């Protein structure tokens, strides 16, 4: 079984996601609207999404190798015609150190491999360096939107960027070249020793 899998969000996942929406780091890094919403209201919203909102929003559950729920991802601003969507994700606190990157990677792969999305929009508030350092964020950002939001007592700047199919292909080719270079170097070293 792969390290991380993506499955459709179901009604049974609603309580766990509701709890996550109210968690402090989530509110700081994404939004704090859940603070002002009742549980029932949040649950109704999620239920509507999975029952009839497929065209505009989709929710997914990220699972570890034993099938345990590790976090959630969701896509909004879906433009089916242009094969574009905005990806958001949130990992449960206890899995953040080990699973964060894998969860993001698995969500991206699912969107490209199965839903046939070509362009994925990322939005990260600039103080949030859980996945990318401040320097990496700067390098990626195509748009920096100041005063985008005010979460947990602070003004936030949002960074937006897209990842296209060509970007992914380029990154994979670079990684492959780097692996090849290391292998060549190791081989050359071994031959030099013998």
């Amino acid at each position, binding site marked *: 079984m792969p390290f991380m899998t993506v499955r459709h969000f179901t009604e049974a996942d609603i309580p766990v996601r509701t709890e996550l929406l109210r968690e402090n780091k989530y509110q700081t890094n994404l939004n704090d609207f859940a603070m002002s919403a009742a549980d029932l209201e949040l649950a109704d919203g999620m239920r509507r999404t999975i029952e009839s909102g497929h065209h505009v929003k989709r929710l997914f559950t990220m699972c570890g190798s034993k099938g345990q729920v590790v976090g959630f991802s969701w896509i909004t601003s879906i433009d089916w015609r242009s094969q574009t969507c905005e990806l958001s994700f949130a990992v449960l606190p206890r899995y953040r150190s080990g699973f964060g990157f894998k969860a993001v990677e698995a969500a991206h792969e699912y969107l490209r491999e199965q839903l046939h999305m070509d362009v994925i*929009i990322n939005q990260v508030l600039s103080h949030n360096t859980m996945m990318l350092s401040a320097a990496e964020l700067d390098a990626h950002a195509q748009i*920096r939107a100041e*005063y985008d939001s005010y979460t947990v007592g602070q003004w936030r700047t949002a960074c*937006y960027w897209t990842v296209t199919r060509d970007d992914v292909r380029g990154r994979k080719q670079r990684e492959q070249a780097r692996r090849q270079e290391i292998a060549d170097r190791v081989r050359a070293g071994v031959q030099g020793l013998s």
Partner: protein
Amino acid sequence: MTTTETPRWSSRPYSDADRDAVLALYTEPDFYFRTGDPDTRPEWEILELIDEDTHVLLADGEVVGLYAVESEANNACHYSMQLRLRASAPPAWWQSAFGELLRANTWRREVVRLALRFDEFDYRGLAFARSAGLREEGTLGAVTVHEGRRHGYVSFARIWEPIS
């Protein structure tokens, strides 16, 4: 009638009485209000694009465009604006309509950030935004397919430093 004279602006929330005038706007192939392909959109889809935030914009009493202002974030006073005038409206009309909309939207409420986006293929929208004194925040690449090619959108904003 279209002149370069500044018209007398008025607006009202969209209602069924405006349906024919609005559908007529969407027969223009570059009436990019919430779509990159206005003239190919069916009636149901156009009516869905026109939500409760949408207002018709009238120049000297005649419908010449649409605008909508939406709240983007709780408590941040961050709003986004969509604005479109019909093809025959001169650039000066865009500037004067936008000026009046700014006045109207900051008249009785705090606005910290007002954001506008225009697609890279929307020459008229971009020309307006670049001459309106807005901050250009960058281009989100490749998000929309238009006539077989990918284009990004350019993000613009006006910021009023918050009072708290």
